[in-house]
């Protein structure tokens, strides 16, 4: 049997071809149209599994800083000579490589992705720079009042889990990281598994065979179970106020943890979120009251499972307003939550929110990059591959009482954490 023949042809609505090397799931999908190709590799790792704060971010960035035979400079030139874009990342939950190219360069892009996966160099010289850059980047982010307040809010919610700290850790954390740490973390991530996705105007069989030729023999086959992650308890204090700088503007965050990405209540909660204000413009109860009726803020955001991944996401209400209006905005937010929990929603609100979520789906799969990301998400988070059919059937099967029950299960007014960032003056 040929290598290509070992792959299972996907069935039904599932498009594309599949393959597996160790714990690396490979998906190849042809999407005709523009002559482009998007490649993604996501290894399950991230800050939640890092032994040293900042290690995920540094390791992810170093994946793009050179391989055994090409240094960062050569990579930059080679990639940009072909009009490709390369981004390597270490996030909260993954180590990622994203390579986008013109379709005529698809094979070359696959060769280069394989090289990045198999031969990362993790040199000391680039480590030194990435550590410096990450530390300065964190300082730049903390210079922004909304980010600084948001970090304090996450610390309140996720303590003592790694999500309670910035991805960069701290300057002192970064200074402790050595090349050997990155190498070891990357090796572990390969054993923990993940996915490689290729989407674009390509010949699926040829593309899969090409990947197999480049990776089957050399990608590590050993598997391992990730270490335990600290439990999330949250901090004891329900309310924090801190001075974050800026002028005339306070930042109010209010919420608590809810559910992970694959939890069956996530989509009902998302639908409830639209009724509360996560839909277009000022539709929804919270923006309508806080911005449209009371004129308190320009920015009013709400999410019911923000950042949901392998760990729980969060209910977050965010309002940017004048310091003297924070109390009024907080009161409005609390009252609207209480009203939703107590009285539920109308049928019209429910149908409108469902229609919105159904209607936005095609726009979430419109570009190759989106399609590649959606496929990678499905693999990493254990979601159905046929996103379009899955989302549609879940949404159509929902009813208002189910959504209201999910909201009551997961929204706890007495447990809301509040973080307020205040200007200096």
């Amino acid at each position, binding site marked *: 049997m040929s290598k290509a023949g070992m792959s299972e042809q996907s069935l039904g609505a599932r498009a594309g071809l599949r393959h597996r090397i160790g714990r690396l799931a490979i998906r190849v999908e042809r999407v005709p149209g*523009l002559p*482009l190709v998007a490649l993604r590799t996501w290894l399950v790792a991230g800050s939640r599994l890092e032994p040293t704060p900042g290690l995920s971010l540094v390791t992810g960035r170093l994946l793009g800083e050179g391989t055994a035979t090409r240094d*960062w*400079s050569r990579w*930059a*030139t080679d990639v*940009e*000579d*072909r*009009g*490709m*874009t390369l981004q390597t990342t270490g996030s909260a939950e993954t180590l990622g490589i994203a390579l*986008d190219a*013109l379709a005529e360069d698809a094979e070359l892009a696959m060769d280069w992705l394989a090289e990045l996966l198999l031969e990362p160099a993790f040199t000391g010289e680039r480590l030194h*720079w990435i550590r410096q*850059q990450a530390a*300065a*980047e964190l*300082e*730049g982010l903390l*210079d*922004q*009042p909304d980010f600084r307040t948001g970090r304090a809010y996450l610390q309140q919610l996720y303590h003592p889990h790694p999500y309670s700290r910035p991805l960069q850790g701290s300057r002192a954390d970064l200074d402790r990281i050595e090349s050997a740490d990155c190498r070891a973390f990357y090796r572990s991530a390969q054993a923990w598994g993940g996915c490689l996705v290729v989407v674009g105007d390509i010949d699926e069989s040829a593309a899969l065979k090409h990947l197999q030729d480049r990776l089957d023999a050399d990608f590590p086959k050993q598997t391992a179970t990730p270490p335990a992650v600290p439990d999330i308890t949250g901090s004891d204090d329900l309310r924090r106020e801190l001075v974050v*700088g*800026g*002028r*005339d*503007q306070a930042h109010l965050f209010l919420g608590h943890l809810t559910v992970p990405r694959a939890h069956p209540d996530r989509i009902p909660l998302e639908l409830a979120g639209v009724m509360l204000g996560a*839909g*277009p*413009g000022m*539709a*929804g109860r919270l923006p*309508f009251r806080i*911005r*449209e*009726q009371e*004129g*308190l*803020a*320009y920015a009013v955001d709400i999410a019911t499972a923000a950042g949901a991944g392998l760990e729980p996401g969060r209910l977050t209400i965010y309002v*940017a*307003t*004048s310091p003297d209006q924070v109390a009024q905005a907080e009161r409005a937010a609390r009252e609207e939550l209480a009203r939703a929990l107590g009285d539920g929603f109308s049928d019209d609100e429910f*149908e*409108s*929110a469902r*229609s*919105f*979520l159904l*209607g*936005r789906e*095609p*726009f979430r*799969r*419109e*570009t*190759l*990059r989106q399609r590649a990301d959606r496929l990678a998400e499905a693999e990493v988070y254990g979601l159905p591959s046929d996103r379009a059919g899955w989302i549609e059937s879940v949404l159509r099967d929902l009813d208002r009482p189910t959504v209201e029950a999910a909201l009551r299960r997961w929204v706890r007014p007495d447990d809301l954490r509040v973080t307020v960032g205040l*200007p200096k003056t």
Partner: protein
Amino acid sequence: MIPQAELHRLENGLKVILVPSRRAPVVAHAIAYGAGARDETAGHGGTAHFLEHMMFKGSAEFGAGEIDRLTQDLGGSNNAFTNHDLTLYYFSFAADRWTLALDIELDRMASVLLDPHELDSERRVILEEISMYESEPWDALDQAVHRELFPEHPYGRSVLGTRDELAQIDREVLAAFHGRLYRPENAVLSIVGDMDPQRALAEVQERFGKIPAEPGAGRASERAIDKAGHRQGSSRVERVQGELSRMLVALPSPAGSSPDHAILRLLLAVLGSGRSSRLHRALVDEGQRCVWVSTDVQETLDAGVTMIAAEALPGVEPGEIENSVRLELARLRAEPPTAEELARARRMEVADWLFGHERVNQMAFLAATACTLFDLDHPMRYMDTLLEARPEDLLRVAQLYLDPEISSVFGWSLPE
């Protein structure tokens, strides 16, 4: 570059661009008005942006907040933005229901309400928006640099206006601005996606064809703004905010209609696009003095601005960064980029274009913006110029537009 685009013009002057695209069962709809901050009257800065907000606050058929509610009911999305040159409103819908966008745009073009109560409420919202931008170090620096580079031209004013100006904008000011500029002859409507162009045109004609033309209305007769907008010579702006040093260098750029604009973009790609670019090497990956650096130039109606931005590592002297920027600008003025650099920059621009226009709403923006400020062929012409520019063209444009001694502002936001 805008495949299969059809341009029609109704009798009342409304331009209609139709671009069928069957890649997904969706339709994007954009309407752009030649009505930006450059069109405001003295003392009424922020009018264009204020009106954009008020366009969601009620018209004859759609009450305050109803546009968002209907958009949500139909599973769509909408938003709007105002800049110095235009205001653009857009909707995205599934292909079987996009005509709601036409109903809404017709109604608020013909009969926006501008209810005084809503107006007061929205004024408070915009004051919060101003505070938000002032609190953000980059936005605050950007405004300060623009004020310095354009002491007379409207491009130097904030699109949001000032607090004092907002207090002066009442219903009459907004109604006059709307009446003067929200006219079919001053608007471009673009529809991109899974629709039949003939039927779409009929739908547009049926609605917007009812509005009579008004000779002399619109911006066309008023476009002549004093073009001597840029400050001459090199100047500095220094602010104190936050804990890091941030640099924003502004240099004059030609109007977007000038062929030199595309050539300048190519030069800026060599200078600051991607890790292999000159400034990125000098300041980031090799020089290791900045966290990041970027270059940008917008396609504006009048002569505009080239921006070079960088965020410094702690402890790095601003002078070191400035010297590198000046050195790299001087290199571009002394000799054209290498053939390798040019080929790379061109390929990156092409790939960027393709990836940047996959979405129907991006295509709708592009078409409406191009046709409002220039013409529908502008994007194609622009890319042709960019791809065909000769080394001597690059040298000439660098000498014209990348010399800080002719005109520039070096802006710094320094640690408190």
